[in-house]
């Protein structure tokens, strides 16, 4: 039985288990129909031209984890940003782990999607926001159909959340292969400010496929800082679908750090539904082995006077493959839009591949839009300069590569994350220096 059939039949079981809420159940039923019709994307789909899911889909994934699994804090401490105080929403094999988490209902909601979907007091929020930003492409629909658990964050008007929120998904590999479908909903009301860190971590050598959907709504003048840390094992794959709707004068930035995983696909979509909005999409990708990272971004400029900034850096070693597909759409009404997109790549192995497609679709005339894309090498003369001053070749190269990705790191607002990422980069480049020269 192939995965699609398995999922379709699992849905029937799933639908019977869950409570019948007419709204959510309708959404799920429509979604499964959309998935059934579309199936998994293939290389024939333009958006998936450079990324094939074929191998991943051959595994016999268990869709619902059979037994619960507990993890001790000390086992997973290193995967958390533990140096600072944070709210934590932790899941183990898709199930909420209360003893690892720290949630709140004090003046805001930092809690669970399952609670939001089932409790009547959240009904209005769910009807207003659930699945309102997500599109009906096949993988998102699949997630929608099975949406049950994840993080639910609702920040009311004028609230500045004093500490960052971590959303962490662990998979333990109790089953031979696991498929996880977390669903997050984040609503940030007017004038509020929140910082969120998301991480998916596999603790097993069994294959894990995560198909995650996150919807973020940033209301008037809201500020959202979102960090995705992707440093998973070679057997874990992630398809991350993020949909962000912004209202006027809101500022949303998403930083994606991709350092590991068998296949990582980031679908990051911004919809600007107001004036004077600022969107930032940045990413650093440093991978080797046979890893594959695909960044697929969309910024939809609908209203005038908005800005978007994209900056993606990639360093590819061994047999790694990098894909960047960035799309900027500027609608007719979106005059005075400033949209910038940059994608810079370094190949450091003969077998590494980079495919990039920066795409502009512009329907308004009074705009400033540009994209730049480069593929190149480290500067020989810069290397020579450093080596002539006693810095060994390996370290010199690492320094250059760190400098190359520093543009992205410099806009990270949580120092702990910056430190953590710097450490991962040093590790990734095989050097033991702090870069804080």
């Amino acid at each position, binding site marked *: 039985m192939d995965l699609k059939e398995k999922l379709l039949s699992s849905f029937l079981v799933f639908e019977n288990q869950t409570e019948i809420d007419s709204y959510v159940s309708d959404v799920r039923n429509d979604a499964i129909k959309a998935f059934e019709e579309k199936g998994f994307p293939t290389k024939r789909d*333009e958006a998936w031209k450079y990324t094939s899911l074929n191998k991943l889909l051959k595994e016999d994934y268990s869709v619902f984890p059979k037994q619960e699994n507990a993890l001790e804090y000390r086992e997973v401490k290193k995967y958390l940003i533990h140096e600072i105080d944070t709210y934590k929403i932790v899941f183990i094999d898709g199930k909420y782990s209360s003893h690892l988490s720290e949630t709140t209902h004090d003046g805001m909601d930092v809690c669970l999607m399952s609670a939001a979907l089932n409790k009547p007091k959240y009904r209005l929020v769910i009807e207003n926001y659930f699945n309102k930003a997500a599109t009906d492409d096949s993988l998102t629909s699949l997630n929608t159909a099975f949406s049950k658990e994840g993080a639910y964050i609702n920040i009311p008007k004028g609230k500045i959340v004093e500490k960052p929120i971590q959303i962490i998904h662990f998979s333990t590999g109790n089953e031979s292969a696991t498929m996880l479908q977390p669903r997050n909903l984040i609503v940030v009301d007017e004038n509020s400010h929140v910082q969120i860190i998301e991480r998916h971590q596999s603790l097993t050598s069994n294959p894990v496929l995560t198909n995650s959907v996150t919807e973020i709504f940033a209301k008037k003048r809201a500020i959202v800082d979102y960090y995705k840390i992707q440093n998973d094992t070679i057997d874990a794959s992630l398809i991350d679908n993020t949909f962000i709707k912004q209202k006027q004068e809101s500022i949303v930035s998403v930083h994606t750090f991709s350092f590991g995983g068998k296949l990582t696909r980031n679908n990051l979509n911004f919809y600007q539904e107001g004036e004077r909005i600022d969107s930032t999409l940045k990413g650093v990708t440093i991978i080797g082995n046979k890893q594959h990272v695909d960044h697929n971004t969309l910024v939809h400029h609908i209203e005038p006077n908005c800005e978007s900034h994209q900056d993606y850096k990639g360093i590819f070693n061994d047999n790694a493959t990098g894909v960047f597909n960035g799309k900027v759409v500027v609608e*007719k009404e979106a*005059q005075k839009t400033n949209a910038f997109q940059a994608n810079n*790549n370094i*190949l*450091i*192995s*003969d*077998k*590494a*591949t*980079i*495919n*990039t*497609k*920066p*795409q*502009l*679709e*512009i*329907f*308004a*005339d*009074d*705009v*400033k*839009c*540009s*994209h*730049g*894309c*480069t*593929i*190149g*090498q480290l500067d020989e003369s810069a290397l020579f300069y450093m080596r002539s001053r006693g810095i060994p070749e390996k370290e010199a190269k690492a320094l250059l590569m760190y400098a190359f990705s520093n543009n992205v790191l410099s806009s990270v607002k949580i120092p702990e994350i910056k430190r953590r990422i710097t450490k991962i980069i040093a590790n990734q480049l095989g050097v033991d220096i702090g870069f804080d020269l």
Partner: protein
Amino acid sequence: MSKYTEDDLREELKTKEYEYGFYTDIESETFPNGLNEDIVRAISKKKEEPEWMTEWRLEAFRIWKAMEEPEWANVNYEKPDFQGISYYSAPNSKPKYDSIDEVDPELLATFEKLGISLDEQKKLAGVAMDVVVDSVSVATTFKKTLAEQGIIFMSISEAIKEHPELVKKYIGSVVPQKDNFYAALNSAVFSDGSFCYIPKGVRCPMELSTYFRINQAGTGQFERTLVIADEGSYVSYLEGCTAPSRDENQLHAAVVELIALDDAEIKYSTVQNWFPGNAEGKGGVYNFVTKRGLCETNAKISWTQVETGSAVTWKYPSCILKGNNSVGEFYSIAVTNNYQQADTGTKMIHLGKNTKSTIISKGISAGKSQNSYRGLVQINSRAENARNFSQCDSLLMGNECGAHTFPYIEAKNQTAQIEHEATTSKIGEDQIFYCNQRGIDTEKAIALIVNGFSKEVLNKLPMEFAVEAQKLLEISLEGSVG
């Protein structure tokens, strides 16, 4: 060209309608509509082609039948009815003439209106013309001069008869029959086109030029051009087009193959000004062209194009940089106005070591038109030290048009150096103001700015074409800015 004085230009600017939209009433011999194996055989027979050519066409037809029309381009149009087209039409007043005086006077008048009177052409700048009216070559000039150098420049149907070994060796070698839907169709039914062979070490003394025209109502034009530059040779080839006004959409599916052997250089320039449809978007030519060049060691192919016409353009002149140290260049200006749609760009396939490519694409959209750049830069794993520079700039006029960029960049070698840049902008009010202040009216100022925007590409055109192209840009954008 000395033809265009300022007075002419002023006159032209007054007549916004397509001034080349007339119909020459020449008695034409036209095949019945539709396409099947018999028609393919009949075309081949009509052209007195050898057996292998007929078979080659039939093979292409069989491939075409199994193919589907591509849908990926960023254009919307009513699909042509391939069974509703006549696949062969030739001016009737054959056979060939020794001198121009014998040519049907009406045909000569057509050329006169197009501003390409053969007499004048002969005197001017030494341009040899292989004039194609509705697919059959009726006049070839300067053939003798060229023949002295060993250069073969003739219609492809003649070449099939006279130089079968060359045609057989190279036709389909760069654009195989199965390449794409329109290339397959063209391979099956191509009616005529140009053939050019430059022998080893010869530098072609003049710009070679052809004019294509679509003349007979409801006739699709399927030319096939094959240019072979043997080792160490050089040729500059010009192609320019105008077509009469017609209400039903006309299909044009040409194939151009360039082969640059070791150390050879080919410069291929196009000015395309087919009927773009009227201001309401009615009529106009469908232009689905496959152009590709193959570079051997140290060879260079340079494509320059100015696209102002056609209702729908679908065109990607490409270079396969097979040999080491080979160079590919692409310079393009695409102008769309009213309801025109253009999806154009290039493919640079780097296979050899130290290969270089440059892409400069300028898109200008006005009215309700859509202008897309679609390009591919591919560095294969064995292409050491490949270098690419791409620049795509778009200029938008008014907020009902669109500019799109779809660049694909695929690198499989760590020594590759690729740069891609794209910008979108509009004509600045301050720029216009600056011109106005110095006594240049807005219309002229826009022409000036557009000219400056396209300069990098215009500079690459041969002299005669550059003047014409500049004028075309002005006419195409006339009235598009209020």
